[in-house]
């Protein structure tokens, strides 16, 4: 308990430093005066007495110094002096200072960049929401599934039950997790905007004040009496409606319905999910009409609502979960057909839906570890360099210590210098982080409706500052502690070669560690880049070039089937007449996109139970689909227009499905029963198997059938570059129907950024980390070996004078670097093999312990090390023995 009073005494003293100094001096002077007075009384002369008094008192200056040191743990004045001196020292070596600053800036910057994503996706609370810490996400949890499929959003009836019965929440709001694309008919011109359906209590439970107009009320959201009302996103209102101050009360035609604007949300508020930025909000009860999906509000098997509850006073996550589970069981008892084994789950409220967070945490965690390792290498570099400089400054340190500077004083001086370096790097790092995160965002495929607002907020700045400070202390403390452990007499007398044996051993350990970490990162980089190349060269089963696509949904305007068909017929005819277009077709969704449809296929007459049916991916297509997409037809034929018009019960299958159901036989003309259908469908063609869900998948059985929904993807094969076809699609769509708008206009080549997204992201990030690691390690090796050579110039001169040949010198110098490299390489590969299993799920067509990768990384690293050692070694060979000896 003695520490606290000590600390308090120090703190007090710190605040009153100057006064204390003055008072203490006065106290000592008074003491001396009294002593002298006594001596005078004993008969000494005045000067004798003063001398005697000083003798008896001893070293007054030393006592004063002690008193000051005892109180100045980190006196601001001295810190400032250290900083100024440090800055002068850094300016003295602009080259090495720049090298260290750049290395550290890259290390810190990449970490800050990753943290920017972590912050946006995991940490930042939603803007404008009152006390977001009180909010909890409510999910349903299936006892059977695992992984992402385990947690389900709520159906509307389940949400209502929870909302009306949960006492742990003072309010429970719900919203449509995926915002919906909606056609906005603006004076006869169709435009695509994004709608988010929200419960009537959405804004009140969230505590979001509506500055213009009013919030929704529960009365606005009665399933029996849906109100066509919208609240606009502030950004949308400014950008698209010129911030019309009289907007409240006006109407907007959305998907064929007139909506009344009741309010404009506060600036900055964009809902709860980070990547979703809706243009407006409308009551949940409007979903059926807007989406032309009758029955959605009453279905218990339509899981579409994300729900957030505000904890009631006294409630906590655990009590809320317990209650929600009880309520879930009540629903299960009442509706065993839909809610069997559905429990509840509670997550804290966050920018991403709770169940998805684990995966983001895992991925960003991995990336963060990778870039922290890069930072560690940068730190080791900086430490090595500082140490080299510190040993070069051994004389300076010796002199200062001989003049009475305490060791703590010297350590502080050196640490201040390295923190200064790190701070310089930190400033550059923020610029790097801003640039890198913007570049990374470009990787996000256009067909993900994601808008990530990645601004560098205070949290990111604080994080960067903390990392910077830590970095500075980490790479500064070690050399500082070592560099100041000197015996001044020894150094000054002996003209000691700075950086003696002890120093070189520590540097060797640092270098070994650097090489090991670099090996680890290079290995990961090699795997991911190799995997990216593999992924790029994977044949998706369709052609990538010269195809343009777009999404169309005339159904959203509430058109009848005839009107939908007429629209597509006209559009097809118009596009086909373009001279640059080879063929036009439709599919309900592209392969490798996020959507998919699956059915069970079973041979007619088979006695197998239904759940043993072959699971088949289903695509609904129009004629000419295979031709347009460049999918090779192996046997049989395509659908005809006549078959398409009457929705004939015919299918085209892929060869995987053919081999599974009719091994060794001709599948053409065979029949298969799909799902619960009574009649069996007839096979008319076989196409080559492609990739349907992910690029890395094993061959999946798939079939193509007719009966297309109103929402389709148009695919257009062009004769030349497909870019122009995007404009044609846009124009012809509007020409056929002014209310329609094509969305997701993109070439298939651009579309491929979606399935390639994981491979590209990991390839780019880990590749960058690996290259950075290699460059930094190379600089580190080169610097340390060069320094060692310059320190041993005299020794080398002596050796050569005594008859050592150039080859011997070369061997001498190279050996040091290569031993370090070999040990580091061994350690690194062992670590890499152990760690590579972590990323195995991200790899395409390459094993995590791929021997070729091990070999190439080893060879590459050894080659780099050889070069790093050879350059200084060559200089060592050229040492003129006479010059080296004469120098002495």
């Amino acid at each position: 308990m003695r520490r606290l009073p000590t600390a308090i005494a120090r703190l007090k003293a710190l605040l009153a430093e100057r006064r204390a100094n003055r008072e203490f001096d006065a106290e000592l002077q008074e003491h001396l005066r009294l002593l002298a007075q006594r001596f005078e009384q004993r008969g000494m002369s005045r000067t004798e007495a003063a001398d005697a008094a000083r003798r008896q008192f001893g070293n007054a200056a030393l006592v004063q110094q002690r008193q000051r040191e005892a109180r100045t743990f980190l006196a601001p004045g001295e810190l400032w002096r250290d900083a100024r001196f440090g800055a002068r020292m850094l300016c003295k070596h602009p080259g090495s200072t720049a090298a260290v600053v750049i290395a550290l800036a890259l290390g810190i910057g990449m970490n800050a960049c990753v943290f920017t994503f972590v912050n946006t996706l995991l940490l930042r609370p939603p803007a404008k929401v009152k006390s977001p810490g009180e909010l909890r996400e409510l999910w349903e949890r299936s006892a059977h599934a695992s992984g992402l499929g385990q947690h389900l959003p709520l159906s509307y009836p389940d949400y209502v039950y929870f909302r009306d019965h949960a006492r742990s929440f003072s309010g429970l709001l719900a919203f449509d997790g995926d915002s919906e694309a909606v056609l906005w008919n603006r004076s006869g011109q169709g435009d695509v905007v994004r709608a988010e359906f929200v419960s009537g209590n959405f804004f009140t439970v969230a505590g979001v004040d509506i500055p213009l107009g009013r919030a929704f009320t529960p009365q606005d959201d009665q399933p029996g009496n849906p109100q066509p009302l919208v609240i606009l996103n502030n950004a949308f209102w400014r950008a698209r409606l010129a911030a019309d101050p009289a907007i409240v009360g006006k109407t907007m035609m959305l998907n064929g319905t007139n909506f009344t604007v009741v309010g404009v949300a506060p600036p900055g508020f964009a809902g709860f999910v980070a990547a979703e930025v809706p243009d407006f909000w409308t009551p949940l009860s409007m979903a059926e009409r807007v989406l032309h999906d009758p029955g959605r509000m009453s279905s218990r098997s339509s899981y579409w609502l994300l729900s957030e509850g505000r904890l009631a006073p006294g409630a906590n996550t655990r009590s809320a979960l317990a209650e929600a589970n009880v309520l879930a069981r009540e629903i299960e008892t009442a509706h065993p057909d839909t809610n069997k084994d559905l429990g509840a789950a509670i997550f804290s409220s966050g920018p991403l839906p709770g169940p998805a967070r684990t995966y983001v945490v895992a991925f960003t965690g991995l990336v963060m570890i990778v870039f922290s390792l890069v930072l560690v290498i940068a730190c080791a570099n900086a430490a090595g360099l500082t140490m080299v400089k510190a040993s070069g400054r051994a004389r300076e340190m010796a002199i200062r210590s001989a003049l009475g500077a305490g060791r703590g004083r010297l350590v502080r001086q050196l640490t201040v210098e390295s923190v200064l370096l790190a701070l310089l790097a930190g400033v550059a790092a923020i610029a790097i982080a801003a640039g890198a995160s913007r570049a990374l965002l470009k990787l996000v495929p256009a067909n993900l409706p994601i808008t990530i607002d990645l601004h560098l907020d205070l949290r990111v700045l604080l994080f960067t500052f903390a990392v910077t400070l830590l970095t500075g202390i980490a790479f500064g403390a070690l050399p500082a502690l070592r560099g100041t452990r000197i015996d001044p007499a020894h150094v000054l007398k002996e003209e000691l070669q700075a950086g003696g044996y002890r120093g070189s051993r520590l540097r060797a350990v640092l270098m070994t560690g650097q090489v090991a970490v670099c090996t680890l990162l290079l290995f990961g980089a090699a795997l991911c880049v190799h995997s990216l190349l593999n992924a790029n060269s994977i044949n998706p089963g369709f052609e990538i070039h010269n195809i343009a696509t777009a999404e169309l949904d005339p159904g959203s305007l509430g058109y009848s089937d005839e009107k939908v068909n007429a629209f597509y017929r006209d559009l097809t005819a118009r596009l086909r007449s373009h001279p640059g277009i080879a063929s036009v077709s439709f599919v309900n969704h592209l392969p490798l996109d996020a959507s998919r449809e699956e059915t069970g296929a079973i041979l007619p007459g088979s006695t197998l139970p239904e759940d043993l049916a072959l699971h088949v991916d289903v695509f609904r297509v129009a004629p000419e689909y295979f031709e347009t997409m460049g999918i090779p037809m192996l046997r049989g034929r395509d659908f005809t227009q006549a078959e398409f018009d009457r929705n004939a019960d015919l299918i085209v299958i892929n060869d995987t499905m053919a081999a599974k159901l009719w091994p060794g036989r001709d599948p053409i003309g065979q029949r298969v029963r799909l799902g619960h259908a009574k009649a069996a469908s007839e096979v008319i063609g076989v196409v080559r198997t492609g990739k349907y869900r992910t690029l890395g998948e094993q061959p999946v059985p798939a079939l193509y059938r007719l009966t297309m929904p109103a929402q389709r993807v148009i695919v257009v094969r062009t004769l030349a570059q497909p870019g122009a076809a995007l404009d044609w699609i846009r124009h012809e769509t509007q020409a056929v129907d002014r209310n329609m708008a094509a969305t997701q206009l993109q070439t298939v080549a651009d579309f491929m950024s979606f399935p390639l997204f994981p491979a590209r992201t990991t390839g780019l990030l880990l590749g960058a980390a690996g290259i950075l690691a290699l460059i930094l390690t190379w600089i580190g090796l080169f610097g340390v070996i060069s320094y060692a050579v310059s320190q041993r110039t005299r020794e080398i001169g002596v050796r050569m004078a005594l008859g050592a040949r150039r080859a011997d010198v070369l061997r001498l110098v190279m050996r040091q670097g290569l031993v370090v490299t070999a040990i580091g390489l061994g350690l690194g590969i062992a670590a890499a093999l152990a760690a590579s299993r972590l990323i195995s799920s991200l790899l395409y067509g390459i094993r995590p312990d791929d021997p070729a990768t091990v070999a190439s990384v080893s060879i590459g690293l050894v080659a780099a090390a050889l070069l790093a050692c050879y350059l200084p070694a060559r200089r060592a060979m050229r040492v003129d023995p006479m010059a080296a000896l004469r120098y002495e």
Partner: protein
Amino acid sequence: MVDRKSEVLQGTLDLMVLKTLYALGPLHGFGIARRIEQLSEDVLQLNEGTVYTSLLRLQQQGWIKSAWGASENNRKARFYSITRQGLKQLEREEENWERFAGIVDRVLRLERQG
């Protein structure tokens, strides 16, 4: 004057200062130095500056505290006094010292054997 003065044993000065403050109540640095000089009958060679180093140490440990007051001849002076913690520390130190002195005493009494 005695020719050979004894060096103050390392660490014992703190104990003497504490005990002085305990016995005589609040004192200024000069007073403490005089008191120790008087008790040691001029045998101890005391660099009086070290008294202040000791006072600093003790103050940092929280064993003594100081306050400004007026000295006998009415000059402004800093008076040091012992704290509750200081009293406890003094007790501990005295015990230690007695044990130590006892051991030294016993060792010095050893007679030559055989």
